């Protein structure tokens, strides 16, 4: 036992050194700059510069295009995988859709299991980790750069992504660890290790370690800094501009209180409000869309035209496609492996049922909620258009000019404001709550990866949680550009490892699927209600 802990501590030390090395050049550079500059730059600028310098190489690698093209290999990687799973499982996302709904409703739940985690609860928790700023700010970024056409590719990516989610969540439940005290731990690190061993393949452990490292970075990036950043932008938009690190410190203190101090009440209150916020957001979007019912046809025309011609956006068709796919993947996390961690806790005798339930996630997240945001932005005419040519006006930075000059969450806010003047306040509250619940979810995902690497124990857990809180401050202070790039890069790096593993493990899922479907057909598996 003690040797396990020692090994954990040694490894922990090594990673701390590695992290220090990663940021060391940036620190040195920042100090030099501070010394050189006659007037020292503001704290926000320093943090931003440091951050951009230290993560640039990683971002460049993940988003490097295929030689001779502008198409990033990572986008192809995700889409090809989602397509492969879709074909391999015979359009499972459409075939199993009605059964998935029945499972969530509890039609197939054994009444004797009441009191255990239900399918609905696992889905709701996983959703509150993914529904968030990706749906509000991320979509605005996609439409702002890629034009309305990005929406089409986003929906397509969402539909295909349902098959990826199905695959990873089935494996998450099948290969989770169940401990004697009844707690469970699951996720890609477990199915990569155990699943590879079950198939007699080597390298599962290596992939699991690699995944865990990227998962920790993803937790710091998309699950943390991006959230803090956009929450700050939202608050600053209402109360006026002020330094980001202040928001960061406030958020960090609250997150610290919850994940270190064990203030469970804050987390559970958020967890209860977030679904209502989500429903309200979709409701408001629907009202705005209905108020502009005459433009719905036009908006869809823009989406379809833009998808295949680009309507003058930077990069044309490919530009729209890349933005759409990128933001969809960031929003619904299909193929990333994070949801498999949340879904593993469900109580079921059939791992495949959790796969069925999880495929609803990209549908709700991307096909419904993201599309609502995009439609509202397009329909309320936020994007500046050249009246003569019918093309969008692209600014110097490569993004489409907006009527209000806003981007990211500001653009979504402006779109809703044009219909309801008071909506930015509601949206601000929603953004803060979404940001917060996503942070809590990702702190958990990150922690699971961290404890997989370093072993469970109070000390190792505290170290992770403290670093997590530090990144909240960095995220709120840095600019959107570097933060969003790093967030995407880290989350996509998870997908590289996870999907690679899924290709080897998908026959196991197929076996489960065939067995389950035949028993469902023969009546062996039947409804309880």
């Amino acid at each position, binding site marked *: 036992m003690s040797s396990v802990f020692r090994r954990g501590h040694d490894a922990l030390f090594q990673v701390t050194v590695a992290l220090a090395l990663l940021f060391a050049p940036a620190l040195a550079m920042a100090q030099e700059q501070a010394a050189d500059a006659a007037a020292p730059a503001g704290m926000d600028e320093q943090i931003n510069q440091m951050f951009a310098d230290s993560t640039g190489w990683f971002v460049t690698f993940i988003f490097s295009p295929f030689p001779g093209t502008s198409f990033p290999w990572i986008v192809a990687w995700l889409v090809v995988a989602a397509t492969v799973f879709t074909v391999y499982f015979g359009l499972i996302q459409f075939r199993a859709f009605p059964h998935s709904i029945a499972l969530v409703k*509890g039609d197939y*739940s054994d009444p004797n299991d*009441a*009191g*255990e*985690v*239900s399918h*609905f*609860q*696992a889905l*709701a*928790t996983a959703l*509150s*980790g993914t529904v968030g700023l990706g749906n509000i700010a991320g979509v605005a970024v996609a439409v702002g750069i890629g034009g309305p056409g990005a929406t089409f590719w986003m929906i397509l990516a969402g539909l295909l992504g349902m098959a990826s989610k199905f695959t990873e969540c089935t494996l998450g439940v099948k290969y989770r660890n169940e401990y004697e*005290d*009844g*707690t*469970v*731990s699951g996720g890609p690190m477990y199915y990569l290790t155990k699943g590879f061993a079950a198939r007699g393949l080597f390298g599962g452990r290596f992939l699991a370690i690699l995944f865990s490292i990227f998962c920790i970075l993803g937790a710091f990036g998309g699950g943390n800094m991006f959230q803090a950043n956009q929450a700050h932008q939202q608050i600053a938009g209402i109360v006026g501009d002020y330094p980001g690190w202040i928001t960061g410190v406030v958020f960090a203190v609250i997150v610290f209180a919850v994940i270190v101090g064990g203030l*469970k009440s804050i*987390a*559970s209150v958020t*967890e*209860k409000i*977030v*679904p209502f916020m989500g429903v309200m957001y979709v409701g408001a979007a629907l009202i705005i869309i209905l108020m502009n019912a005459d433009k719905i046809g036009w908006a869809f025309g823009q989406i379809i035209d833009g998808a295949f011609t680009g309507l003058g956006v930077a990069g044309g068709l490919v530009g729209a496609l890349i933005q759409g796919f990128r933001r969809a993947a960031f929003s619904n996390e299909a193929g990333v492996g994070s949801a498999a*961690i*949340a879904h593993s*806790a*469900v*109580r079921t005798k059939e791992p495949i049922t959790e796969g069925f339930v999880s495929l609803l996630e990209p549908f709700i997240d991307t096909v419904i909620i993201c599309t609502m945001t995009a439609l509202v932005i397009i329909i309320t005419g936020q994007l500046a258009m050249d009246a003569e040519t019918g093309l969008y006006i692209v600014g110097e930075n490569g993004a489409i000019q907006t009527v209000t000059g806003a981007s990211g969450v500001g653009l979504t806010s402006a779109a809703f404001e044009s219909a309801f003047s008071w909506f930015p306040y509601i949206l601000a509250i929603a953004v803060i709550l979404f940001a917060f619940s996503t942070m*809590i*979810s990702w702190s*958990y*995902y990150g922690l699971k990866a961290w404890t997989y690497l370093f072993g469970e124990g109070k000390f190792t857990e505290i170290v992770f949680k403290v670093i997590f809180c530090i990144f909240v401050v960095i995220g709120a202070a840095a600019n959107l550009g570097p933060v969003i790039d790093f967030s995407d890069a880290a989350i996509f790096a998870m997908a590289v490892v996870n999907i690679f593993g899924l290709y080897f493990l998908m026959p196991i899922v197929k076996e489960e699927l065939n067995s389950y479907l035949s028993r469902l057909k023969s009546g062996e598996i039947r409804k309880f209600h």
Partner: protein
Amino acid sequence: MSAIFVVGYAEGEDSERALNFALERARKGDAEIRLVFVLEWSPYSFLTPDELETRHKRRNEELARATAVVEPVAKKATEAGVKTETIVRYGHAAEVLCEVARETGAVQVFVGRGGSSSNLATRLFGSVSGALVQASPVPVTVVP
């Protein structure tokens, strides 16, 4: 075969009153008692990832705690001459009591009336006894 009475039980005086009332009737009519302890639970509530992870463990703890509450009560009742069995279940209290009444073929359900029936929360959301009276398949006795 003797008749079966279902008694809803939770910690508190009102449950004691309901049980005593049912015991009296059971003794006269030679009936058995099923003592039902309901752990309030909805499969549609929202949980944090942490809660998901520890749910199974918590459930075992909750069941153990509930059993520890009802078992001694049932034993005492049995020793006093009325055969009493316990049932611990998750769900909505009124629904579970109806369910148990149906399954056991009970002839009557007994519950205590908790708190004052005039408070605002009860007016707005209804009470367990109120819901039970409306949905029960067999006669219900609410013991004040």
